[in-house]
C-alpha cells in the first residue's frame, strides 16, 4: 500500500448529518477484482487530491444487477435495482460517479423507470470536470510523448455516446493519443459484455479480446487506456495472447491520471 486513502461511507456522512458532493459507486469489480481494485484506489487518490467530499456505500453497496439483466434475468436485476434504489433514495443521493460503464449505464438509464433517478457520471467525465475546474492539476511528465490508444467501452461509447471526455482527459497527460482504426461508434467490443465475462465463449476461431488487442497493437502503442474494469481484464489477457506484455501496458484512465499528479 503506497498511500493512505481517505474514504468515508454514507453511514458516516449520515452520522455527521452531512451530504457528500458525490457518491462513488465502486461496483462489484471495483470492490473485489484484484486488478479493478487498483483502479478504484487510483480514482480515490485523485478524489483525495482534489479534496472531493465523496462517499461510498461500502458494505451496503450491492450489485447493480446489470450483468443479470444482460444475461436475461430481469427478476434478479429488478430485485437488485429496487434494493439499491431504496438505499440510495433513503440517503437522498443526487449524484453518482462510477468507474464501471456497465453500472453507469444501468444506474443512468434503467434505474429511473424503477424509481431511482440520479445524475450519473462516468469517472472520466468527472475527472474532466475536476480538471476543468482546476481542482485537479496534472504535472504532465510521466507520459509525455508516450503513445496511448483508448479503447472505447461499448456501454460508455455506443451505448451512451460518451466519446470525448476520456480522450480530453488523456490529452492532458501530454501523451500522444493514437486512434485505432475502429474507434468511437465503430469500436469493437472487448468481448466481456452481455455477461460474457462470466462464461466461456461459444465455439469460434478466435477470442474477441485477442481480435480487439490486435486492433490496438496496430497503432503501435506504449499504453492501451481503458475506462472499464472488464475491458481492462480482456485487453490485458489479449496482450498476453499476443505476447506483448513486456512492451505494452493496459491502464485505466484513472490510473494514468493518478500517475501524473
Amino acid at each position, binding site marked *: 500500500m503506497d498511500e493512505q486513502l481517505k474514504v468515508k461511507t454514507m453511514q458516516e456522512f449520515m452520522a455527521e448529518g452531512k451530504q457528500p458532493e458525490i457518491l462513488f459507486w465502486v461496483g*462489484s469489480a471495483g470492490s473485489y477484482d484484484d486488478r479493478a481494485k487498483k483502479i478504484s484506489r487510483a480514482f480515490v487518490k485523485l478524489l483525495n487530491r482534489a479534496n472531493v467530499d465523496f462517499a461510498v456505500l461500502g458494505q451496503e453497496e450491492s450489485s447493480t444487477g446489470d450483468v443479470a439483466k444482460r*444475461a436475461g434475468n430481469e*427478476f434478479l436485476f429488478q430485485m437488485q435495482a429496487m434494493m439499491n434504489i431504496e438505499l440510495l433514495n433513503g440517503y437522498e443521493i443526487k449524484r453518482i460517479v462510477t468507474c464501471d460503464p456497465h453500472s453507469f*449505464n444501468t444506474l443512468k438509464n434503467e434505474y429511473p423507470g*424503477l424509481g431511482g433517478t440520479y445524475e450519473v457520471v462516468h469517472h472520466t467525465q468527472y475527472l474532466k470536470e475536476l480538471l476543468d475546474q482546476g481542482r485537479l492539476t496534472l504535472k504532465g511528465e510521466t507520459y509525455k510523448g508516450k503513445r496511448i490508444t483508448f479503447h472505447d467501452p*461499448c456501454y460508455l461509447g455506443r451505448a451512451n455516446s460518451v466519446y470525448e471526455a476520456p480522450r480530453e482527459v488523456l490529452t492532458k497527460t501530454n501523451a500522444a493519443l493514437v486512434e485505432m482504426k475502429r474507434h468511437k461508434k465503430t469500436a*469493437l467490443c472487448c468481448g466481456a459484455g452481455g455477461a460474457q465475462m462470466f*462464461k466461456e465463449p*461459444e465455439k469460434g476461431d478466435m477470442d474477441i479480446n485477442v*481480435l480487439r488487442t490486435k486492433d490496438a497493437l496496430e497503432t503501435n502503442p506504449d499504453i492501451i487506456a481503458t475506462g472499464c474494469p472488464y475491458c481492462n481484464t480482456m485487453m490485458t489477457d489479449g496482450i498476453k495472447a499476443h505476447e506483448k506484455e513486456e512492451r505494452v501496458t493496459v491502464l485505466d484512465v484513472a490510473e494514468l491520471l493518478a500517475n501524473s499528479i
Partner: protein
Amino acid sequence: MEYLPNIVFAIALALGIGFFVRNVKKLIRNIKLGKKVDVGDNKPQRWKNMAKIALGQTKMVVRPIAGLMHIIVYVGFIIINIEVLEIILDGILGTHRLFSPIGQLYDVLIGSFEILAFLVIVAVTVFWVRRNIIKLQRFIKPEMKGWPKKDGNMILYIEFVLMVLFLTMNAADFQLQQMGADHYVQAGAFPISQFITPLFEGLSVPTLIFIERTAWWLHILGILTFLNYLYYSKHLHILLAFPNTYYGKLRPQGQFNNLESVTNEVKLMMDPNADPFAAPADPNAAAPEKFGASDVMDLNWVQLLNAYTCTECGRCTSECPANQTGKKLSPRKIMMDTRDRLEEVGKNMEANKGEFVSDGKQLLDDYISREELWACTTCNACVQACPVSIDPLSIIVEMRRYLVMEQSAAPMELNNMMSNIENNGAPWPYNQMDRLNWVNE
C-alpha cells in the same frame, strides 16, 4: 377493338395493384401479431430520424462505395416514378407522352430519367459484381446460401432489365420521332438512348413501333411484377425503411426496457405486507404474462416490423464481434429467422381460418439456436451498423429472458454468477462484508 390495349392495361394495372394491396394487408396482419409497445412519444424526433436516416440515407454512406451506389439506385427509383406516372396515364387514356406539352421541362425530365437509368444500370452491375465476383464476406455467410442469394441477384436482374427496357423504349421512340411517324410527337431529350438508336437504323416504322410497344409493355408489366415480388423477397425495405426508422429506438442504445410484468411481481415480493398466498384480486385477470420470447408472437410489433424491413445487407453481421471471431451468431440471421417464422405463422393462420394452430415449432431452437443467443456481447455494434434502425439485440435479449426466466436454461457459469448475486450481492463468491477491503489493500 380500338380500346383493347386500354382495357388490357387497366386490367393488368388493377391486378398488379390488387395483389399488392392483398399482400400489404397480410403484412400488416402479421406485424400486428406482435405485442403492443408504446412508441407514441417524441414525434418530432421520430420524424427527424425518418427524414435523416431513411430519406437522407445518412447511415448508408458510412460505407462510401455501397452508400453512393445505393443513393443512385434510390434516387433513380424515386425520380423515375414520375415517368411511371406518365406511362400509367398513357396506358389508361391511350395517349402517348401525355406530359410532353410542358415543353422544355419535359426534355429536362426525360433527359434526367435517362441519365439516372444509365447510372442505375452501372450501380446494379457494381452490386452484382460485389455479390458474385468479388464475393464480399458479408454476402457469402451461411445464412445467405440458397434462396437469399438468388433473391438478392433476382432483384438486381429485374432492376437491370427494367432500365434496359426503359432505354430501349426511348431509343425506338426517338428513331420514330426522327422518321416523323404518326402519333410519335417530337418530345423529350435522349442523352443515353441516342446511342442505342443507331442499332435501329434501317428498320421500318411498323418494326420500330413493335419494338417500342413491346419495351413499353414489358417495362410497365415488369414494374407491376416487381411491386408484387417485394412481399416475397428481402426488398420490402424500399417501403418499410420509412416506418421502421420512424419507430426506431430513441432511448440511449444501452438502455434495455424494464419488464413491467416483472416489476409488479418484484414489488409484491418486496412488500412486507403482501400475502403471497392471496387469491388474485380480480379472478378474471389474464393468466400471468410469459416472460421473454420463444416465438414471434412474444415479440413486440416494432421488432416484427424490423424483421420485414431487413434487406439482408449484412452490415450488422460484419460488425458483430461474435461473428467476426467465428461464432455462429449473426444478427442478420436473427432478423431473417424472425421474418421467416412470422411468415410461417401467417400461412398457418391462413390455412386455419385466421387462427394460429400450434405446429409444434417456435422461433427458439427451430430457427434460432441457444448457441447463437449466448454468443452475444450486447455491444450494440449491430444496432449501430443498421442503415434502417433495426434492433437485432432487443430480440436476442428477449429470447435470453425466456431461456432464463421461463426455462432456467442459462449456461451453468451464468447460473453460478447469478446465484452469487442473489447470495452475496456480487457476481463472484465474495463476502459482502469485504466490499470495502480494497481501501486498505
